[in-house]
């Protein structure tokens, strides 16, 4: 896990470094009135003149102590800049996850068990739309419908649970659709298995066949995908956060990249890498728990 996190942070550091140091971006108009010598002094004072491996090594040594440095824009600890946005990101990610699982999986099951029917067609149309419609467009449409024309829900910002509805639905649309399609195909595959035929032959009601026999096995691959999905959702969504002015990690990270705010980028990337690796590990462990045939050395 540590190796993966280190590799990710080194790669992101190197890529950002390749775009040039942030001196001119930080100075802005000041660079126009400063001499080249003054600009170089500023660059040296902030340590931007050192080669990137040296800068990265310094970062790693401090990061190991929990010190990601000071944000070049916010003038306070970079870790704090990211960490204070984590609750909002987790909140929105959790709601989107719950919606995508709570509606996506049942939709897939219903669709599979009524294969070829109007219900199946309708469900898959919804799934197709969910995967095709850009989240930017969906978000704006939902805002206009439920925030402006039918002013039922807050349009932007964070506050009550009502503020979670529109961004949550927008963020959940794509994973919900994917979960529905994946569940459908997985259930359909399992329904052809011999043990399902045996269950039917034994007289088990169809509902029982589906929920007590087929579904448990059908969900194993779905769980894997959903677990990884959780990692993405917890990483924040720039588009949804921007449309709904949601104070999450995704937007902060994109702004930091644009501002060449190296410490914040590193803090954010490290946090995301740790989250992904942890979620992956959790999924792997869960997989072994769910499927006794899988055992790790």
């Amino acid at each position, binding site marked *: 896990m540590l190796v993966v996190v280190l590799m990710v942070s080194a790669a992101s550091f190197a890529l950002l470094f390749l*775009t*040039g140091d942030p001196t*001119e971006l930080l*100075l*802005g*108009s*000041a*660079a*126009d*009135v*400063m001499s080249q010598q*003054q600009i170089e*002094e500023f660059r040296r004072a*902030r340590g931007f003149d050192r080669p990137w491996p040296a800068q990265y090594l310094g970062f790693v040594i401090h990061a190991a102590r929990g010190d990601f440095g000071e944000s070049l824009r*916010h*003038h306070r600890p970079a870790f704090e800049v990211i960490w204070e*946005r984590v*609750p*909002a990101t*987790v*909140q*929105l990610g*959790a*709601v989107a*996850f*719950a919606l995508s*699982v*709570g509606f996506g999986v049942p939709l897939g099951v219903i669709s599979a068990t009524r294969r070829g029917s109007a219900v199946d067609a309708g469900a898959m149309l919804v799934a197709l739309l969910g995967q095709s419609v850009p989240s930017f467009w969906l978000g*704006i449409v939902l*805002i206009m419908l439920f*925030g*402006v024309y039918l002013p039922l829900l*807050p*349009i*932007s*910002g*964070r*506050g*009550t*649970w009502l*503020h*979670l509805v529109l961004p949550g639905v927008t963020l959940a649309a794509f994973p919900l659709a994917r979960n529905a399609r994946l569940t459908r195909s997985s259930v359909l595959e399992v329904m052809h298995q011999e*043990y399902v035929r045996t269950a039917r032959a034994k007289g088990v009601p169809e509902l029982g066949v589906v*929920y007590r026999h087929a579904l*448990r*096995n059908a*969900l194993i691959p779905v*769980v894997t995908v*959903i677990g990884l999905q959780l990692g993405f959702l917890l990483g924040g969504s720039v588009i949804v956060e*921007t*449309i*709904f002015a949601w*104070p999450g990690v995704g*937007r902060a990270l994109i702004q930091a990249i*644009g501002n060449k705010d190296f410490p914040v980028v590193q803090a954010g990337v490290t946090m995301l890498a740790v989250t992904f690796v942890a979620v992956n590990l959790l999924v792997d462990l869960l997989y072994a*728990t*769910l*499927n*006794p*045939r899988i055992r790790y050395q």
Partner: protein
Amino acid sequence: MSHVTGSGAWLWLRRAAVGLMALALIGAPYSGGSAAPSPDTAVLLQGGDILTLEPYFSSSLPDTNAIIHMYETLTRFGDDLKLLPGLAESWRLRDSRTWEFKLVAGRRFQNGEPLNAAAVRYSLLRGKEFYEKKLGDVQYEYSLLDLDAVEAVDDVTLRIRTKEPNPLIPLHMAHTQTAPMPPRYTSQTSVNDLQRKPIGSGPYRVVEFVPNERVVLEAWADHPDRPRIRRLLFRPVPEDATRIAELTAGNADIIVNVPPDLISQVERTRSGRVETVAGLRRIIVGLRMDRHPALRDKRVRQALNYAFDCRTMMRNLLANKGECTGTVANVPDQNPAVKAYPFELQRAGALLDEAGWRMNPRTNVREQGGRALEFGFDCPRGRYIKDAEICQVIASDLAKVGVKTDLQVFDWSVFVGKSARRGAGFRDIYLIGSGPGFECQADLALVQKDSGSNRSLTDMPRFEALWDDMSVTFDVKKRRDICFKMQEVIYDEAPVIFIWFQTDIYGVSQRLEWKPRVDERIRLHNARFR
């Protein structure tokens, strides 16, 4: 075939989904958020987050719009940009390097500390220290100030001495980074806390700062000019369409940066209206004198201006919310005799012919000695209103007179790297915006040969002679006369393609009486609800 047992996949999924939903809902605090504003609160939606309320740590506009309500400065710019008294009731030039300010007596900070010359001295020297130690965000302002010494003669008399004669010191004292701060509180408070809980002397003080979500200011009862609006709520809403939706729904009082193509959407609503003002940001296409040899010829530069149909672009792209210009000086220093270049394709062609650049009928590109009249054209995206689109229009217009351009559009973080070191990364021509200098000479530094903001490396002898004159002239009327002459020279020499002064477009609620300022500052000191 074995089944999964007990804690099966479905059970796990159900538990996870319920648990996460509960976490989200329990964690959702019941607090403000967006809703119809209360009768005593003005809601301002800006495009960026407020990162800090400490003026020495910021020069960004979202921060400044909050800061100007909490702090006061020795001087201030009125709505018409005339310099007015602020905390200083008068000022005079004592000798060529020393300005003396007389402060208003008896003023205090919001925590009761006296606002006297000693406090102003403390603040300016703190700014100087930050500048010397490369701390904060004061590099620009304090390099221009170039302070030598600050003396508090008595409680109401302050003397500021600079290293070189500087006629612009009173203007600089209107900058928020010269705002006085209470010495005892400031020296005893951590930098982190100062950024969230500042103390100033302005009509508002901060009551709530939730990072990335909102800043709430409340009127300070003991301020001599108590404002009429009790509370101000600042929220960051990055997306243009979302800000407009909030205004339409009646949830906001002021929204910034309404795109020209969405103005009609605001105008159609009952809850809002559009307010525009010609801003101070000059948008130009710089012409580098050290690249393509054609750009060293004044006739070619003039031809580029004649070939650009600015008025059609203004109508079609910018909804006529702005005016084309022929100067780079801001109000109130604009020479009224200097107008925008007219759109005259034939004249452009004639000038290029005269300069020796003849049209090649096969390629439709002008040539001289086998070299094509082709320019690399660098353009930012998303930094200025319709920047990339304006570049495309200009490229298209220039093509009509046989000037070919290779247009490349860059994200701002990349573009700014090119603009560094006086535009070392630019190719032949580039679109850029430049903020105001708040005084003629500072504005015209854009094309002065030694100025860091002169990215075209322009050198105009007639202009430079006038510049030298102006640098040693302190009489206001004489400075103005020189300023007007310099603008005539700039127009004739055409070191840039003149475009416009970017219009600032706001959406404003019908209940708010407020007019925008030219300097992009949203000042609500005198605003009121209808």
